[in-house]
């Protein structure tokens, strides 16, 4: 645990030591605000809830989270620091987990910085704050899934642009598979795949959280999803360490 915490601390420090943190948070909040207020008709709906906000959140994350993960391993490999890091007396699991937790903590900070939305709806009406809390939990879990996938992809390449583009594509596919647009399309053209896509995709699971439902199977799904891609990242780092 100690090496994991040391790596977590270093990685989190690196976000704030470079412009990454400021750029990420400003663009994230700006984009999320613009989409919620303008495209989502936040005020015109005349409803005291954060449904438009939570509908757009995963799509903004999908675009920005790969920017955090692309440098995670690709940068270590490019700078040669991976050789220094992996010859310290730590297991690769510590390194992968430390980097993942740092990115997840950073994303959680960014997501929680959207708190003015919560204050706004509470000022304007009487929202279901339990459902809002569940939505936030869902969003943080979605970010965790995107980060775990991004980590595995970053471990596989030395090129940050490749890592970014592949991670956006993978996050999009994993999220969209569970959204109504895809499942309804599949229900018409290939019914057998429709249920599979809904079960495997992140979108449908997240939808439950935004409606205020925290179901144990969904929590198990998110935990397994994150774990699977972190284990993949450990295997890939080990396999590609000397390339």
């Amino acid at each position, binding site marked *: 645990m*100690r*090496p994991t*915490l*040391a*790596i977590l*601390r*270093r990685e989190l*420090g*690196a976000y704030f*030591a*470079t412009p990454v943190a400021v750029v990420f948070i400003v663009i994230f909040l700006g984009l999320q605000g613009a989409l919620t207020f303008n495209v989502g008709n936040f005020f015109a709906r005349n409803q005291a809830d954060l449904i438009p906000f939570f509908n757009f959140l995963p799509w903004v994350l999908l675009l920005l989270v790969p920017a955090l993960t692309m440098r995670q391993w690709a940068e270590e490999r490019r*700078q*040669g*620091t991976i*050789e*220094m890091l*992996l*010859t*310290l*007396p*730590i*297991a690769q699991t510590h390194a992968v987990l430390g980097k993942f937790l740092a990115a997840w903590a950073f994303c959680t900070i960014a997501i929680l910085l959207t708190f003015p939305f919560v204050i706004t709806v509470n000022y304007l009406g009487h929202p279901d704050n339990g459902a809002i809390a569940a939505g936030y939990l869902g969003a943080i879990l979605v970010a965790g899934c995107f980060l775990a996938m991004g980590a595995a992809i970053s471990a596989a390449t030395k090129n940050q642009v490749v890592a970014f583009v592949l991670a956006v594509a993978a996050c999009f596919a994993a999220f969209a598979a569970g959204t109504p647009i895809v499942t309804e399309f599949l229900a018409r053209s290939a019914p057998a795949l429709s249920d599979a896509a809904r079960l495997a995709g992140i979108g449908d699971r997240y939808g439950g959280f935004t409606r205020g439902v925290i179901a144990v199977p969904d929590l198990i799904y998110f935990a397994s999803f994150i774990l699977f891609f972190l284990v993949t990242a450990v295997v890939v780092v080990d396999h590609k*360490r*000397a*390339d």
Partner: protein
Amino acid sequence: MDDLSQDLIEISGLTKRFGAFTAVDGISFNVARGEVLGFLGPNGAGKSTTMRMLAGFIRPSTGTARICGHDVQTDGIKARAALGYLPEGAPTYPDMSVEDFLGFIARIRGYAGSEARDRIAEAARLTTLGEVMRLPIETLSKGTKRRVGLAQALLHDPDVLVMDEPTDGLDPNQKHQIRDLISAMAARKAIIISTHILEEVDAVCTRAIVIAQGRVVADDTPQALARLHPSGRLDDVFRTITAPATAPGTVKDAA
């Protein structure tokens, strides 16, 4: 552990193949406490690959490497805990200050509080980094960056020190200083340094191994090696015994 003649580094039949190319071909040698081994050979001879296998960074195709009795593959964490390793090019995190970087290494190595501060201060003193501790590493000169890498390797006062070209990029004064540092530590540790500077071998090494095309072609004291050529100069010996490896078609040192 206090037996001064024990072999702290044991390398046996170490081989690394990258596809059809054999970078390191059945290298075996031991290094005892008190020895400073100069690791010589032309570029691409397999020096860095051997050191990377010893440090546990790349997995050997066959053969074993042990540090203080711990196999670097099967008991890697214990082996690496006893090892100070300076990789080629002395990589460090450019966005961190020297102080933060050494603090990170100290935490990873399990030091906390005043013990961590003492370790960092001592490593900084040995590598004369005192004045640049608060500066970001990316703003430092090449020689200073190398000394930061060296401080990282020395922080835990390891029994085994493996350094890939530790004086590359240093000015003559700094080179002299690092050689003095190595000589001062020599009695307590087993040290391997790779270098292209043959005078360095004369100055600090008690033993020299020359490798060419992945094989050990000479293993002796620098003085005995120098006698292999009528001129009595190490660089003439080096050129004679490694000549085939510098022929066209030599593959660059992998990775």
